[in-house]
């Protein structure tokens, strides 16, 4: 019986590995394109790996444009948004999960409803607001509108609802304030959810394009996604250089993914409570 289980495990592993390899292909193609001769047109059939490695694409993207600044901007924006979500979103999620107050259902539904409005029609009104606040071309405009995020609230509420209340109630009996209960007990227990939320938010912030484009003017304030667009012209795109920049841009999200996974394991040990 054990042999069958081990065999089954092996099959599963193989399937997952195969699937994982297919996930690798576009990433691989992105990297291989970044090493091809500059000006290489995107032809078919696809050349799997360039015969000569052209590192000058990387040189160009790192030196001919304010790449480091763009990278930093992306980091600041993504981290800023993540911080906002992990704090304000988690707090609000906790409020919906653990407290009872009037209009709770309606307010939650309202918040949820905001997720369903396509963002494109909100961009120009929001830009006008930024203009009136004098925040155009600043980090404020890139980060602060993320203060409210229904997705974060929804996710955190879901997780707090599933947490057994015993520990929290015990703390209250011991005289802890709600804030202490939240900070010391509920939040640490929600580590997997926080890791998930943080990953999502970081990724969304790192990849965002249209809003930063609209709200930044100077090259120096641009995040990576918008900055790299200078390699996309009207008639032709410098694919190889663009891919070099994009490849460099995958490093932080991948690090975030690897980091977030630790919290899943942690959550496993913290999640099993004995009475």
């Amino acid at each position, binding site marked *: 019986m054990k042999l069958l289980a081990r065999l089954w495990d092996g099959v599963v592993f193989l399937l997952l590995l195969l699937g994982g390899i297919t996930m690798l292909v576009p990433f691989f193609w992105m990297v291989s394109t970044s090493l091809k001769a500059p000006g290489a*047109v*995107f032809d*078919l059939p696809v050349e799997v790996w360039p015969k000569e490695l052209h590192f000058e694409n990387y040189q160009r993207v790192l030196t001919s444009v304010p790449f480091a600044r763009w990278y930093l901007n992306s980091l600041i924006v993504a981290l800023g948004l993540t911080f906002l979500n992990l704090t304000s979103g988690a707090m609000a999620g906790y409020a919906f999960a653990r407290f009872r107050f009037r209009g709770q259902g309606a307010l939650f539904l309202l918040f949820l409803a905001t997720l369903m409005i396509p963002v494109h029609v909100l961009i120009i009104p929001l830009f006008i607001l930024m203009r009136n606040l004098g925040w155009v071309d600043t980090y404020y405009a890139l980060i602060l509108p993320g203060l409210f995020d229904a997705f974060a609230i929804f996710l955190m509420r879901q997780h707090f609802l599933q947490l057994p209340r015993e520990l929290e109630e015990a703390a209250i009996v011991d005289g802890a304030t709600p804030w202490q209960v939240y900070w010391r007990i509920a939040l640490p227990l929600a580590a997997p959810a926080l890791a998930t939320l943080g990953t999502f938010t970081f990724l969304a912030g790192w990849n965002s394009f249209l809003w930063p484009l*609209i709200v930044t*003017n100077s090259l120096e304030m641009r995040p990576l996604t918008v900055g790299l667009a200078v390699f996309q012209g009207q008639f032709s795109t410098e694919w190889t250089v663009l891919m070099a920049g994009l490849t460099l841009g995958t490093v932080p999200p991948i690090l975030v993914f690897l980091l977030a996974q630790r919290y899943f394991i942690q959550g496993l040990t913290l999640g099993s409570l004995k009475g």
Partner: protein
Amino acid sequence: MRKVLVALLAVLGLASAQKLVLASWGTQEEIQAYQQVLRVFQERNPGIQVEYINIPSSEYLAKITAMMAAGTPPDVFFINNIDFPGLASRRVLRPLDPFIQRDKYPTGDIFPGILKAFQWGGVQYGLPRDVSNLVVFYNRNLLRKAGLPDPKPDWTWDDFLRYAKALTVEKDGKRVQWGVSFQTFYLFWQPWVWSAGGRFYSPDHSKFLLNSPPSVEGLRFYLDLRYKHRVAPTPEEAQDRGPFTMFLNGQTGMIVDGRWRVPTLKARAKFDFDVVPFPRGKAGSIVDIDGSGWVMAAGTRNPEAAWKLLSFLAGPEAIRIFTKTGLIIPARGVDVKNVEKSIQNLKDFFVPPPPKSQHFFLTVNKTARPTETFERWNEALQLINKALEPVWQGKADLKAALDGVAPQVQKILDEVQAERKKR
């Protein structure tokens, strides 16, 4: 005390400096050209501060619109002639005629086609920087292999077909080389329509004319290249290889394209290439002369300073700087009043051969005309393209498709006419 006074004056000077916002698209090389141009401008105009905003071309209009919606449009910005009517018709641009007439601004050496492209209702709203047009690129190596001399600049459609047939090569019953690449973007079949005597619309944009006999004749000749004479690859034969890629790899002998291809060809083509004007149809050899230029926002707060900037950007000195990048064909050609000087300016345009016959990029401008754009050109074009999609794939009849889309496009034209009367 004096130091304080000097400092105060400096601060006041800066404070009273007029601030302008300039916006355009452009790749990283163009940005450097802009910085150079603006440096010269600032030296000559110390009282004017220019903030340059470079906007990625993929979302250029989105950002310009956002700035306009917020009530803070750029004072001077770049626009191409296709999108120009959309702006001009909505009265968000400032007329330039008063400035041009007052300063006696020289426009004599600007190609008339592109100058007109930036007029609306007879008034000049923009000044062009560059033009783009179409020529026929050919692979001289393949031509020689087929025993053909260089095409003559006044060659006809029959000559073109002859060349294309000679350049189509079969091996083991399958075609491995075609005479000409086939492109479905409207820009590339437009010359076939015009040179046959056809048009998209009547000049006042009141009537749809793409399904008129001369237009259909021109398009049919083009379509026949693919399905009747088989000198252009069908979609199956092309197998998703781009038309330019096929030319670059020596799989097609000719392609109708623009000067922006020259840098890539010079870097990567393994053959000698050259250009020749578009072949003559019944109505001559008419390609497009489209381009981009500078306009001034109607809501600008510093019209005088903005004019100083705009006139400088469109002037021969700035255009020289842009031409030196090798990315554009300048909109200023030969000034009949000052031939010597203008030829000097144009010298920057020429790159070392190949191609040998670069002068054609300039000469075809004489008979070229701008794309027949109007306020809702993009919308109408979408409908037309959708109708023609199956035609290019050989699955629908040309005349039927055009007749089918005619009522919808005509509706747009009628609505535009009504709108114009209201304004």
